[in-house]
């Protein structure tokens, strides 16, 4: 529960930093955001008045306890705070809204006054991170975060200079690729991370993971997978050139917005071709064609006489799957298997039928991260398939008992016939990826946990 409170606080703090960047102090929206952060801080400090958030390397720690999922979800804020030299944030409840505003202003770079007194204090708590990170999936998360970092760097560079260095992206993909080989199921579960704040970055990372997994299923080797990984990671990079107001528009796009949105594939492909030498044509192809349909429709309209390349189509199915399973302001997230059904409906028309089949074969009926309501009223999160091609059901962890109470995750094997409904993670209050480090789930991934970190 503490991680949940810390997560809510950081989410609220992030909102304040954004508002502070946009509006002056006293603006109603800023005040509202500060008020939200104060409520979140109050929840965090309710039990123990003093709460210390440490920032060390690539993680947040709450009172010296690692917050694995929060670190990933708020990776951008973590970086911003670290760039401002923040090592720790001490909250002394009840936290004053004015102090939160000062913290946000400092984090946003609009103020250089380091809050040292009052109810929010910076860098008062020294924390030496243990050499051994106890999280069994720390490497996996680090790779994921590395991918996010590389995407942010590329986006910043592209926005400011119109060009970027592709090497960090390649390094990030190679790191992620190693993990998707050795921790295949865990990385698929990690791909259920859905951040609203940096939607494009997280979506790109998830698309990358899914595309790499499909590629592995199809027997591609590492040399072949790296360019596909780079392409899938960068497939939306052209959105840097699209007005953020359109990207963040909370409703359906109108005609004018569509016209601007449709330039992002060519912007991305151009940027990759400009940035990279020979060897990255695959990535550019993917960026250019990821909205082109198998039947020749879609955008941009390129040629009458050829279909999009098959690996563009591979990334497209991963892209669509992740996009429709992500909650957007104007559209609820599709349950995972309904997303697969949508792809199946359009196989041979919008999507390459073989690629749709490969994705379904990889994910199964209830893909990892599906929140399942079972016949006995309990709620479980699917984590992996029992075996390919079998109807033996799947492995899952129970998170809510029959009385509707959240419980410590408990491993169980679920048959398809036991599933009565698919639930929305938000509705149930479950974050599938956050389960990764829970003991019961770690047990399920025992063969994927690095030596020395196995749970007894």
């Amino acid at each position, binding site marked *: 529960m503490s991680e949940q409170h810390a997560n809510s606080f950081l989410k609220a703090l992030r909102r304040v930093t954004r508002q502070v960047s946009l509006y002056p102090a006293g603006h109603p929206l800023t005040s509202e955001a500060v008020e*939200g952060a104060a409520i979140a801080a*109050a929840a965090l400090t309710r039990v123990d008045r003093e709460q210390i958030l440490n920032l060390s390397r690539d993680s947040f720690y709450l009172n010296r306890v690692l917050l694995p999922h929060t670190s990933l979800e708020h990776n951008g804020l973590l970086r911003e705070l670290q760039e401002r030299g923040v090592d720790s944030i001490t909250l002394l409840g009840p936290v004053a809204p004015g102090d939160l505003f000062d913290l946000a202003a400092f984090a946003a770079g609009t103020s250089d006054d380091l809050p040292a007194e009052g109810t929010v204090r910076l860098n008062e708590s020294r924390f030496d991170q243990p050499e051994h990170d106890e999280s069994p999936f720390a490497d996996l998360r680090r790779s994921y975060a590395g991918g996010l970092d590389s995407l942010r760097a590329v986006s910043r560079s592209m926005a400011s200079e119109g060009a970027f260095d592709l090497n960090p992206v390649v390094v990030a993909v190679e790191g992620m690729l190693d993990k998707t080989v050795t921790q295949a199921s865990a990385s698929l579960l990690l791909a259920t991370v859905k951040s*609203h704040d940096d939607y494009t970055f997280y979506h790109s990372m998830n698309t990358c993971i899914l595309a790499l997994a499909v590629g592995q299923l199809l027997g591609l080797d590492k040399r072949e997978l790296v360019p596909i990984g780079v392409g899938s990671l960068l497939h939306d990079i052209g959105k840097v050139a699209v007005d953020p107001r359109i990207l963040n528009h*909370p409703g359906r796009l109108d*005609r004018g917005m569509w016209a601007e949105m449709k330039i992002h594939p060519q912007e991305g492909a151009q940027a990759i*071709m400009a940035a990279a030498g020979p060897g990255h*044509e695959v990535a550019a192809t993917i960026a250019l064609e990821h909205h082109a349909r198998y039947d020749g429709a879609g955008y*941009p309209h390129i040629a009458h006489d050829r279909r999009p390349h098959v690996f563009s189509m591979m990334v497209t199915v991963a892209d669509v799957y992740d996009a429709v399973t992500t909650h957007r302001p104007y559209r609820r997230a599709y349950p995972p298997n309904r997303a697969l059904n949508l792809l199946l409906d359009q196989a041979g028309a919008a999507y390459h039928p073989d690629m749709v089949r490969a994705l*379904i074969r990889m994910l199964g009926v209830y893909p990892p991260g599906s929140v399942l309501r079972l016949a006995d009223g309990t709620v479980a999160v699917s984590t992996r398939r029992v075996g390919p*091609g079998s109807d033996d059901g799947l492995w899952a962890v129970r998170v809510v008992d029959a009385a509707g109470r959240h419980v410590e995750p408990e491993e169980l094997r679920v048959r398809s016939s036991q599933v009565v409904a698919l639930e929305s993670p938000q509705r149930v209050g479950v974050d599938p990826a956050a389960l990764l480090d829970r003991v019961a789930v770690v047990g399920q991934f025992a063969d994927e946990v690095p030596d020395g970190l196995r749970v007894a």
Partner: protein
Amino acid sequence: MTTDATQIDHAAEEAARLLSALGAAWSTYRLYPNPVDQPAFVRAVDALASFEGSHLPFEVGAGIFAWNGEPLEARRDGVERLATQLYIHDVATLRLARPPSAQELADFFGVIDGGEAGTQEQGGIDIALEAAGVFSLAVERRGLLGRQGEESDHDQQGVGPGEDAGLSAAELRPVAELAARGGDPAELAAQCVADSGGDPQAVADEFVSAFGEVHPPDASYGDNRGIVDALAPYWVDAQTPPIVVFAGAFEHLAPAAQSSILAAFLDSSSELAPRLFLDQLSGAQLAALAPHLEERSRDQLRDYVRGCLDRDDGEIDELLPLLAAGSEIRDERGSVAGRLGALVNNPAGLLAVSGETFDMLHDGLTPDNHPALGVLVLRGLFACEHRDHRFRRLLRIVSGRVAAAVRAGEFAAAVALLAGVRDDGAYPRERAPEVDAALGKLLSPELLTDLVERYSDEGESEGVVQLLSYLGPSVAAKLVDALATEESPALRRPLIELVGAVGTKHPQPLIAGLGDPRWFVARNLATALGRTGRPEAVDALRAARDHSDYRVRGEAMRSLVRLLREQGTTELVAALRDVDERVRDTALGYLRTGEFAGVDTELAGAVGRDEIAAEALGAVVEILARLGTPAAVEGLEAIAGRKFALRSGDRAVRQAAKDELKRLSR
């Protein structure tokens, strides 16, 4: 007075403490599966135990409690949530009849934590609490019509989204206030019906008016401020955005009211908020209502849907199903799971990936095929890029890649890239000059020297020629210039060949240079033109036969012969009247080979027209005599019967012709 005021303040403080304890307990209940065991819950129960005696009831509003007619400051956010939860259950007042036990308090929370539908089924929240054995906390329900009277109680209530619209929460009508507080959609719909009397149009008017109070029309669609404001509620999930509450409530209204509301929102869909409301509705919802709309609204709906789908045509019946929205995502679990299960469990059949796909994947990812992919990407980009500045950037990308390939000696890759861009109209025709100019800049003097040297290498000559040819006509012009200034004989020869080879694709710069007054320039270009094989070079070379320098004239003739091959007889015979012996001798040399057609006829004609220099006639007699055809005889007769000037040589020619005629007649 002071004493009274102090007592009231003290009582208010007590009331606030009581609420704070309730709020703490409520938060703990919501956070933990076993709240009664939680220290925070126990502390709250202990705190409540200290409030023995009668208390005035707390009045319950959406997110706020009032006591003695005054709103109470919420010291914990749990208090606000508790008020909201009670409000949802139509609780008008809450009273602490006696301190509850921990279990009783948990049971109280258990009842109000359930859905209001459940408590309504039991006959209301008060009856549900009785049924649960909760008597320490007493509630009174409010009637729907009683809401109006409560408004004054909320004059000092806290800030809600409605205030962003310039109204305080207290100034909002009840429906709007409910939405502003992120209330229950069904509740809002019921409130709307109750407040309007139930007539569909009145319901619609109430709904639209309340929506307008929370979402003012001053933010125009596309306006930055408006977008930021619209987004703001989505950034924190703590409260459901009012617009989503309205969209949810819409589903609970009668179709007639829905149609009227839809018409109103379509009418103002150029404004941000109404447009966002429409965006919440699914295609299925809109399709169900479309038949009930008047023609004007249907047209507006059609335009809206076309805009959303970025389509210029199509009618709403075919377009609406394509619009997805949250409410369309219904529980299709059974059919979906069954369908997917059937596929997953038959991997050998339905989920098999074709061998062709495997091959395409592996082939496409082979490094050798990367350049070809690069060409496809660039062709695609050239085809779809209509923005001038981006088109120029594309050209820079191509230039950079070609230059890199050339530097690496990878002519095939450079040529493939250029061919991919140049061939088959990858870009619109009107862009050609821009492309030519950009690519032409690639050929620096240093690169040219390098390429000429490489050209001499047998293995690379073809690649060099193709590369230069694809760089465009401006490169041919540069080569012509280079040819004019190249002083090294060792480089000049391959350069001439290179100019000729490139001239096969771009002959015009060579033709233009042929008129150069410098004989060596004209001569070299004449040579090069002969290597182009282009028909348009013929006229230019014929014109060069009038050049003042014999070397140019001679070279032009040789090039003409090269271009026209056996059909070059006319050109050779024409050269026989050249004033320079070296030109004539060259022509005669060709004519003597016997490889040219119609030599006899052409020579006879030229003799008849007196178009052969007298100095060449002796050789002509030899050629004609060797041919011995009737036409040749005719030519010999013309020479034999000719009245020459009194020069010994002429007479000798005439005599030679006569001798040959005699010989032939034998």
